[in-house]
């Protein structure tokens, strides 16, 4: 019943100052458990932060889905066109010029479209990052007292940073998974309605899967990057200042 081990560990000193050791434990498993708890129990706050990721990544996913779908449709159209041309050629001799003319226009259009898309995607991700940073800043600020308390209990700056980064990765991962699903499904539905329900069959699903994975990675990374600043700033505060902060 008695805990004598705690006593046995005491640093003993005779005469001089006591022996000061260095502090450095927060096992990853414990850090993960605490962070996960923070996300699940502060679901409202986490949802607001995640919403930024969801929106940004949903937009990215929708742009990429439409790209894959359009390419798939064009490919099948081109194939149909070529078959048609071949059929015409076999039927009525040589007539090639019309085909090449349409292809040139398509290439130029494609380049324009890609540039426009890249611009939109970059802008939306920038807006999304600003949103997440703001949300993270709020989330860290409202927990200054908690951070100060943890430092009083013996937490190092890096424990605090670690907790917040794990938390932001969790939020980022969850947010971008949801975002990818929403963006992808909505865009696919739109194309199905516009171009017919056989659209999914004409798509390159391998390319789509790669795009989706990249989108999830980008979302998680953005959330992580957005959290670094606020987390480091909070962790560096002297505990006294952190404890006195009122919001």
């Amino acid at each position, binding site marked *: 019943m008695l805990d004598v081990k705690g006593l046995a560990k005491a640093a003993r000193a005779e005469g001089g100052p006591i022996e000061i050791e*260095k502090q450095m434990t927060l096992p990853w498993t414990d850090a993960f458990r605490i962070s996960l708890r923070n996300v699940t129990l502060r679901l409202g706050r986490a949802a607001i932060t995640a919403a930024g990721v969801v929106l940004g990544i949903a937009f990215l996913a929708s742009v990429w889905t439409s790209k894959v779908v359009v390419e798939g449709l064009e490919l099948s159209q081109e194939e149909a066109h070529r078959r048609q041309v071949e059929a015409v050629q076999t039927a009525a001799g040589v007539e090639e010029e019309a085909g090449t003319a349409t292809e040139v226009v398509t290439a130029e259009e494609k380049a324009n479209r890609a540039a426009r898309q890249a611009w939109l995607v970059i802008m939306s991700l920038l807006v999304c990052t600003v949103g997440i940073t703001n949300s993270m800043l709020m989330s860290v600020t409202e927990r200054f007292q908690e951070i100060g308390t943890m430092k009083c209990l013996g937490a190092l700056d890096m424990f605090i940073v670690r907790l917040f980064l794990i938390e932001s990765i969790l939020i980022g991962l969850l947010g971008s998974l949801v975002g990818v699903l929403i963006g992808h499904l909505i865009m696919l539905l739109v194309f199905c309605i516009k171009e017919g329900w056989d659209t999914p069959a004409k798509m390159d699903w391998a390319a789509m899967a790669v795009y989706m994975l990249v989108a999830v990675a980008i979302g998680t990374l953005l959330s992580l990057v957005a959290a670094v600043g606020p987390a480091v700033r909070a962790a560096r505060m002297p505990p006294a200042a952190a404890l006195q902060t009122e919001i």
Partner: protein
Amino acid sequence: MAKITCPSCGYEIDTPGIVTVCPECGADLRGVMEEVGHQREEMMATIARDDSVTTHEFIVRTRGLTKIYVMGEVEVPALRGVDLDVRRGEYLSIMGPSGSGKSTLFNMVGGLDKPTDGTCFIEEVDMAQLDAFELAWLRCRKIGYIFQTFNLIPVMTALENVTLPMIFAGMGTDEMMERGRTLLDLVGLGDRLHHKPYELSGGQQQRVAVARALANAPAIILADEPTGNLDLQTGKEIIDLLKELNRESGVTVISATHDLKMIDVSDRIVHIRDGEVERIEQRADLELEIGTLGSEHVTD
């Protein structure tokens, strides 16, 4: 004091000490109470870590401790050269009106902020010489903090709050859980282990905070206005708990307060005014004064 169970009928009594006979069956409870008291004494012996009783008389010493806050272009002195010696095992209250610098002194002694000038020694170690890792170790192992606003981690249960400093100290899970339970039992919350802070009353939250402060068997408990957010009765209970810990386990208690109830239990009272020690009163000098005020008197 913990609950006791009547040996003949199994009835649980919440307030042993007030009743000595079981209200259900009338059995004599004094034997059981003595046993519980003995167990409690044994438990108390493990609560505080007493490293070097024979080596230093003073556990905390400050010399010329000065803190100046710079607010814009104005310099606000919060402490103007405080010299203070805290004896090992004493119950010291720091009293003074708000803004007198007692919280600042608390922060300096607890290693929560750096002084502008002067030195603060804990067990003869100059705090200014410690790096971040050593300072964290000191906060984790040597000092237990209690705050006016309890400062429990809201997403964690009582038990998790108490065991958090033990995680930082690298204690094994089983040992940690056992000690957490023991400590919560000690402060009378053995049946509230898995409650979140918002499910507990103010007094109960402060009890969890007391248990947390004891997590790594500290040598010093620093309490900043521990009764400030509690009603009279609950505040008294917390003070009694701190005094009991101080008396039975020998942990040094330093408490910043302006709660007059603290006078009863303090060995010495340091009065701070405008960042300076105004006067230090010994408990012996106060006994008479309290007697004339007619306050409740605590006998040892």
